[in-house]
């Protein structure tokens, strides 16, 4: 992994007082990575992003993009960042077309063909009144504005909030596509399932502190899997419990157990269950959420 680090923070702290803000955030995002940034509402995701973009001045610590300190060089790094804000507020202009044209003017882009191409691909009607656009249209417009100047880093602050599931999938697909082109993507979300399918790396933040950085490959290809087994009679249930499996959940009432099985032990399990009267057996998917829950417990956060 000798890829260049494009986003870096060192002990980044922005203290708003009363324990609000972000504290000692250390991030390293390498070129071409797609990183998810997960945390509950108010955990400091947006604050971190604002620091990265240089909109706010850190209380202490460093924060740099492409080796340029964010706050001091915000206009320089802006050239390399496409940003979709969490709360989209468009300028006071009549239509989406006027807005996109205005943005193109800011970037001194003369050739509108690329923009028109994106518009048609997203099936966006930019003639619509900016104020009356639906959330989805606004997000699309904002995404086009962020992609317009082909910046190598894309920072998205909860881009899918408020989108319907279908729209969300289409939206994520577009971001993935950009990722495939080699862009570095930093996307915040408060939904685990959204980032777990798409990102290479997921950073969990809670109460302004980074709790864990998870490598999605490791989670996806875990060597242990959980199975939920329910028996039709108590005898089998008791017999099974007596076997030396790692039981992580036991529900006597339903004659149900959840066991954790290493991949190489899977055949043993089926052998043991062969003579039992089973109601069902199902794999309990190990989700990111679960992973973080464990981590939070482990590290003593509540």
């Amino acid at each position, binding site marked *: 992994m000798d890829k260049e680090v494009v986003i870096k923070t060192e002990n980044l702290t922005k203290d708003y007082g009363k324990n609000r803000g972000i504290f000692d955030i250390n991030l390293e995002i390498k070129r071409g990575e797609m990183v998810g940034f997960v945390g509950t509402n108010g955990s400091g995701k947006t604050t971190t992003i*604002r620091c990265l*973009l240089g*909109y*706010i*001045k850190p209380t202490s610590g460093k924060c740099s993009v492409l080796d340029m300190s964010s706050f001091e060089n*915000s*206009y*320089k790094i*802006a*050239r390399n*960042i*496409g*940003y979709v*804000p969490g*709360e*989209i*507020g*468009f*300028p*006071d*202009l009549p239509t989406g077309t*006027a807005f996109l044209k*205005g*943005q193109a*003017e*800011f*970037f001194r882009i003369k050739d509108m063909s690329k923009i028109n191409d994106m518009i048609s691909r997203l099936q966006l009607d930019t003639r619509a009144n900016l104020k009356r656009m639906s959330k989805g249209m606004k997000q699309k417009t904002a995404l086009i*504005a*962020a992609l317009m*100047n082909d910046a190598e880093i894309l920072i998205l602050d909860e881009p899918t909030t408020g989108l319907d599931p279908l729209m969300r999938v289409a939206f994520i697909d577009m971001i993935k596509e950009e990722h495939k082109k080699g862009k570095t993507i930093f996307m915040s979300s408060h939904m685990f399932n959204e980032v777990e399918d798409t990102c290479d790396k997921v950073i969990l933040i809670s109460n302004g502190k980074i709790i864990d950085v998870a490598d999605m490959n490791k989670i996806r290809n875990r060597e242990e899997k959980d199975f939920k087994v329910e028996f039709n009679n108590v005898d089998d249930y008791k017999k099974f419990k007596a076997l030396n499996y790692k039981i992580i959940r036991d529900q006597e009432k339903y004659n149900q157990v959840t066991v954790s099985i290493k991949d190489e032990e899977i055949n043993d399990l089926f052998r043991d269950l062969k003579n039992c009267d089973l109601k069902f057996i199902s794999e309990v998917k190990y989700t990111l959420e679960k992973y973080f829950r464990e981590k939070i417990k482990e590290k003593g956060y509540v």
Partner: protein
Amino acid sequence: MFSKALFKQSCKANYIMWTTITIAVCVMLAVLMMISGSGDLSEMRVGITNTIVQDSIENESEKRAVNYYDIVESNIGKPDNYQGESFLVSYGMLLKNAEKIATNRGYEKGTEEYYEIFSLLFSNFSKDDLKVLAGGLITEETIDQMVIDTGLGYNFLNYDEVNPNMKKEDYIREYCSSFLAINMTSDRGIEKALSGLKEYDFGLDDYSNLTYTNDAGEEVPKFVGESGKIYLKDLSNDSILTYQARLDYSTANVTDEQEIKAIKQSLIAEVGQSFLASMPKSVSESLQELGTMDLFNLITGSIFYKVAGLLLPIIYIIMVANNLIAGQVDSGSMAYVLSTSTKRKQVVYTQATFLVGSLFLMCLCTTAVSFICFTIIDRSMISMTYGQLALLNVGFFVTLFALSGISFLTSCIFNRTKHSMGIGGGLNMFFLVATILGLFGSKVLPNVVRIDSLNFFNYCSLITLFDEMSILSANTTFIPKLCVLIVVGIVCYVIGAERFKKKDLPL
């Protein structure tokens, strides 16, 4: 330093408001100037002046008539009571001299010409001549009174020779009236009256233009020429009649001489009271002020440029200053500007340029409109000059510049529209309201509607530094004040820009 794209965006976002407000201000200004310059208002002023002047002349006449009557009536046959011995000596000498003149001119005793000499004598001769005539026995201060008394006295002394069938009172009244009419329509009398009317800017032409409708239905001069004599004589006659009647009534059951004297004095004072003098002093003073004030200056200068005309541009300032910075930070759209690698310095410089530029353009429009209207209207009654009008427009712009600085400053400091508008707009509105209240206490308003204690508000408004009174009275005290406004504006813009460059933006 300057972002063309952002400037364009600001223009697109605000041009409708700018256009609407500019048109509204210009129309308001045009209508105001046309109305106040159309002559209707100056006619009103002339009307007020004429009324006051006429009233004071007429009352002066009445007062004098009653006074003459009283002097003559109470001194008949007992000259000792009047002015003492020295008077008698000089009086006799004057009579002798008057007689000499009349004889020299060949007037026969008993004719009207003969007696008129005694009246005219004192109207047509200078004070020095009179001194000589009086043989140096009287002081200058008493000459005026002596002129009257002597003329009257002589006429009276001969009354039974002229018209033996007449009652004494009627005779005195008749002669007092005639004497007064002749005296007041003489060159010397008119000159004297005009010098007393200087403060109203009242010339001989205006004086001659005061008319009344005579018995023949013609409009004739009230105070000059033959018609003036008739009018003044009737006026005096009436007032003396009134005085006589009231005196008879008041003294019917009074025998004590002291008491009668007191009643007479109070009656004379009452009859002689002019319309203005009969009112409380402040009211009469303010009416006089109304007659002398320049309504065009008041309406265009003090009311439009300093109060009414500021309102809409202030609303524009509050809205636009907020839209340019705080509104965009609040809504988040500033993110789109900053994400295009536009420096914050560029943003704040461009937006400040837009705000000041749009206000400047607005003021250019008002200047153009005001000059066009000023050219159209009849300026004969207006003291304002083109230069003063231009200076008013400059002051108007400088004031708006300073006020926009305040709104821009709060727009840069606060991230929320409500705070930026609430504080910046609130301050601006406070200044405007204070100026409106202060206007009622300022010296530009006539006393009758002025509430002096409200002048306090002028001391807590920034707009007071726009000293339109100084501009209109052509002195230079407005210059340092305007400089203060410019400094306030610049300081606000600079602080705002510095703050915006350094602050945290919630985008």
